[in-house]
């Protein structure tokens, strides 16, 4: 046992009669260990050291695991909810409408001019079911009939099936 002893040992009586001076107290080890502890310790350590070399897997500290599990759960749940949300047909339409609403009319007209989509194809894509004409042409009622007649006469319908 590693224990340094000093020759200057003071008796209890002497210690009580005058103030303690550290240098006058012997350096005695007050703690003890179980019998044979230091004989067994090297083997225990050696075994653990060799085992730690064999294990090449990355050990994650318990503290990190405690944090990682709830985080992973939150990510999984959010991912699932997000996936469901994005794939909901109603939400999908709403998102498309919102995206189109952000595009200015000028940009839309310019895009349609450059694209190969014909007026016929555009009309086919639009559903007028249940919609009133007023919704598409606000203020139409205020236009005098004469002006409307002149306007209609100016339009070249070409094919009557377009309507």
């Amino acid at each position: 046992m590693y224990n340094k002893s000093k020759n200057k040992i003071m008796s209890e009586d002497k210690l009580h009669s005058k103030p303690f001076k550290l240098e006058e107290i012997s350096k005695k080890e007050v703690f003890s260990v179980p019998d044979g502890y230091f004989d067994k310790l090297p083997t225990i350590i050696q075994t653990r050291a060799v085992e730690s070399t064999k294990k090449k897997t990355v050990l994650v500290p318990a503290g990190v695991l405690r944090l990682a599990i709830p985080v992973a759960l939150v990510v999984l749940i959010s991912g699932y909810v997000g996936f469901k949300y994005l794939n909901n047909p109603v939400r999908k339409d709403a998102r498309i409408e919102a995206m189109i609403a952000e595009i200015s009319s000028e940009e839309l007209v310019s895009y349609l001019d450059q694209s190969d989509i014909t007026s016929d194809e555009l009309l086919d894509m639009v559903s007028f079911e249940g919609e009133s004409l007023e919704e598409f042409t606000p203020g139409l009622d205020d236009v005098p009939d004469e002006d409307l007649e002149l306007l209609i006469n100016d339009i070249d319908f070409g094919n009557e099936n377009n309507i």
Partner: protein
Amino acid sequence: MEDSELIEKLKGEDTKNYAFNLLVRKYQERIYWHIRKMVIDHDDADDLVQEVFIKVWKYLDNFRGDSQLYTWIYRIATNECLSFLAKKKKRFFLPIVDVEKELSNHVDSGTNLSGDEIHLKLQKALLKLPDKQRLVFNMKYYDDMKYEDIAEITETSVGALKASYHHAVKKIEDILNNG
């Protein structure tokens, strides 16, 4: 076996295990007592001394030899002790006084204790010192280490260590006389 020879053998694949066993046998008691005086409880000291040597084994390649082998091992042990005590305080949300009380109770409980009254009083007085000052005191007083070596272990200047030790001795003597 000299440390230089031990280090050489630790570098060799064939001799590494044998040299490590020699290293543990050479330093286990010094490191154990260094830790035990800090954590007081034998089971805690046992866990920590094993951790220290496992770290020595793991990081042997990092030891460049610019410090002495024993100061390097002491530094690992010192850091393990300080983080153990810090964790203990955090884990139980205990103020320093309560940790001191708990350790003091271990001294009183008598498990694996063999000292007489004055030495038990000294141990309890030591617990009133801050952890780092206690470490410095133990290394100087019990282990008779040179200030230069303690400076290397604690990464503190020799002047600061001398002042710390001087104050520690004063405090302990005051506690023993008045406490």
